[in-house]
């Protein structure tokens, strides 16, 4: 369980995020949605300790994020940002191998190698494992990054806009992979998404944010309501029943 208590963050005196109070339960996929500047990424980065909060407390699996040792946190929680540039050229396998760092400190054991292979296979990158990242397509590269953080085998996985720059086919593929990671590997995944319909189709819970506050949090059916979404996005949004569940039309 991820618990936020009165978490606040101020940027340059103008933008205020919080107070955020939320309990994200274990297992399944939770999507963060909301208009630009609502504070989705800020909240995710604060949970992932990439951004310091000004006030409040965040606990992940009963560990205080601000007080625990970074390496201990890295065994229960990982985070991937939307843009990653590395100065060194890495192969897919080397990249995924970095996910084992919290355990092996860079000395990969046989078990580590087996786990690395498992996630490379899981994301369908087996034939590409010795390619350099800059030789891959955008979708493949994104899968490699996600494979890297899953390879860390943490209970909680935070992803900041993993569908950014992916076309529809790659985006669907990515969400299918995440769904399987949640179902088959029992991970708790928190993901920032821009597309309401992707969130509705693939997540278990949706947290909607607006103006630095949590506007609504609940199951997909609880959130996919026309009045609620219209209010959050300040655009008229209707909900219809599609073949895979509810669809937002705007």
């Amino acid at each position: 369980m991820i618990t936020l208590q009165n978490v606040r963050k101020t940027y340059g005196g103008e933008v205020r995020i919080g107070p955020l109070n939320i309990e994200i339960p274990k297992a399944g996929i939770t999507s963060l949605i909301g208009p630009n500047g609502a504070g989705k990424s800020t909240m995710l980065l604060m949970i992932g300790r990439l951004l310091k909060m000004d006030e409040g407390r965040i606990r992940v699996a009963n560990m205080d994020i601000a007080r625990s040792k970074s390496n201990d946190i890295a065994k229960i929680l990982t985070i991937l940002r939307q843009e990653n540039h590395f100065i060194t050229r890495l192969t897919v396998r080397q990249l995924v191998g970095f996910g084992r760092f919290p355990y092996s400190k860079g000395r990969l054991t046989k078990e580590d190698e087996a786990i690395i292979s498992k996630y490379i296979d899981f994301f369908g990158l087996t034939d590409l494992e010795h390619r350099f990242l800059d030789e891959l397509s955008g979708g493949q590269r994104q899968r490699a990054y996600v494979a890297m953080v899953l390879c860390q085998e943490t209970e909680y996985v935070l992803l900041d806009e993993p569908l950014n720059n992916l076309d529809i086919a790659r985006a669907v593929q990515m969400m299918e992979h995440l769904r399987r990671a949640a179902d088959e590997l029992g991970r708790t995944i928190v993901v920032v998404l821009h597309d309401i319909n992707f969130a509705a189709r693939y997540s278990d819970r949706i947290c909607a944010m607006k103006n630095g506050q949590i506007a609504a949090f609940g199951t997909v059916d609880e959130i996919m309501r026309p009045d609620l979404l219209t209010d959050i996005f300040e655009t008229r949004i209707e909900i219809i029943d599609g073949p895979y569940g509810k669809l937002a039309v705007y």
Partner: protein
Amino acid sequence: MSTHAMHEAEIGSPPPLAEPRPERNRLITVPFVLAVFAVIALGAVSLFTGVYDIWGREDGRDMFFITRVPRTIALMLTGAAMAMTGLIMHLVTRNKMVEPTTTGTTEWAGLGLLAAYLLVPGPTLVMRMTGAIVFSFVGTMIFFLFLRHVRLRSSLIVPITGMMLGAVVSAFSTFMTLRFNMSQVIENWFIGSFAPVQAGRYEHLWIIVAVTLITFLYANRLTIAGLGEDVATALGLHYHRLILLANALVAVCVGVVAAVIGNIPFLGLIVPNIVSMIRGDDLRSNLPWVCLTGMGTITLCDIVARVVIMPFEVPVSLILGTLGAAVFILILLRQRRSGRVR
């Protein structure tokens, strides 16, 4: 703040280009007039600061016109020139930490002077000036070329790279001076000072007036060029010609000053930054203010340089180099606190 957000912030707040702002567009305002008077007062102080007794001595009047007047004029012209080069470079690169010192342009000018000495034994001032201008132009071009095709993750990379480039060029200059035994040339250039200025030695600085006029005429277009090739072309401008023009303006200013006075560090950085801190980012209407503040700052520094160890004087570049460094760091820290630097 993420780098992504930073780019957005930078792109999201362009200087108001065509917005009508009557009170800003009017040049002659009360503060401006006051500032003009302040600079004139500083100029007067400069005229009457010095060891030589121009009132008591018989040839005081001559000395006044041979050294004091030229020195003060040189100060005004140099101040305006160096502050303006900073502004032009800010306009074109949209980076407030870019100026001749942080792009290596100054070091290229020094190398140009050296080249003049190598090619022609005992070069005239015009030859040295030409060398400095040509080399500054090439150097600035190289830097702009680099800026154009590189994707930057932090705006701070730009001055860091520029100063690296400057260090490369000055390493090359050092090599040449050692090889041909001309260390003093570079050392004398490196220390910019107004002490040797007198009638007959500074008149080339008047070129700066022409550069200033051209800059005033083209300021709007240069601002648009700063938005990038696509925007400039969409608005019907010849992007490459504008970049060449900006380059040429910078190179002429830096080259002339390098040949006549020497190295004047950081002025192009601190003056436009201070002006935009006070007046906001409307770069176009800041131009007269930048010239004026540049004149005032350098004159003040030169007066301090003349007074601080009287009857001797320290070169103004020492004052500007240390003071400028301090102000630069303060500006950086201020931006850091407001979260604008990442």
